[in-house]
């Protein structure tokens, strides 16, 4: 199938419409000179991915993203930024100098190259069936609570640990333990 055929397919336009902003946003996240902006770009990126999920019909995942991230995680980030008194305006030293960014970029590109090469090699131009109706949340829930109950429970422990540990670390002690070599 030629690039022409590809362009004639409507879904691809939708894809591009969602994917491009997502990607650009994520680029901005890693390159923006303003902390707050960067985090807000993160919102866009994640939102974009959520939209892409919806497009693929996996609604539950999509909405979970919206809820968890945009609802909670981003707030967490903002709080983090506020507390750490990061300069809310433009600041040059948000990233390492170009001398450091260049090799980083190179590394990333190489990594991407490897993956891209592999993916193209393996999948070629196989098409992805456009889902006619969304996956039912019910089925997902069922299989989670039958097949994946162990990881689910374990995950709860992970979150609990993260919660308690996070508190223990983050809270200001009445008398901070003195240094020890």
């Amino acid at each position, binding site marked *: 199938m030629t690039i022409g055929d590809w362009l004639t397919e409507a879904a691809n336009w939708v894809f591009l419409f969602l994917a491009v902003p997502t990607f650009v946003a994520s680029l901005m996240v890693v390159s923006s000179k303003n902390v707050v902006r960067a985090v807000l770009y993160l919102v866009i990126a994640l939102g974009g991915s959520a939209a892409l999920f919806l497009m693929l019909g996996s609604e539950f995942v999509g909405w979970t*993203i919206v809820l968890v991230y945009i609802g909670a995680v981003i707030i967490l980030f903002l709080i983090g930024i506020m507390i750490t008194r990061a300069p809310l305006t433009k600041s040059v030293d948000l990233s390492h100098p170009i001398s450091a960014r260049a090799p980083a970029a190179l590394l990333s590109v190489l990594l991407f190259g490897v993956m891209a090469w592999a993916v193209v090699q393996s999948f070629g131009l196989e098409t992805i069936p456009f889902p006619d109706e969304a996956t039912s949340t019910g089925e997902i829930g069922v299989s989670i609570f039958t097949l994946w109950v162990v990881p689910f429970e374990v995950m709860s422990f992970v979150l609990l640990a993260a919660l308690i540990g996070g508190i223990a670390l983050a809270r200001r002690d009445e008398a901070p333990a003195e240094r020890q070599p």
Partner: protein
Amino acid sequence: MTIIQWILLGSAMFSVGLYGVLTRRNAVLVLASVEIMLSAVNINLVAFDTYLADPAFTGQIFALFVIALAAAEVGIGIAIVLMIFRNRHSADVDELDLMRY
């Protein structure tokens, strides 16, 4: 609609995330970059799920777990950052240089 376009997107975002991890000085933004890497993984998973028309929705479920993981990670990460900031009044990763080779 081909599958590779999705996976390429995922890979690209993954690499971008890595770039962020490598270049960002502010710890919080490093975390943000990590989030991007993880969400790239999510894109892959969901895309493959649809591609395979997996009856068990493994991909989606996996993605859900990854989201939870990411949330937990952020929690932990932010906590650590706060702690560091409390001691050092800065969240710059390249000041983490106490321990030599």
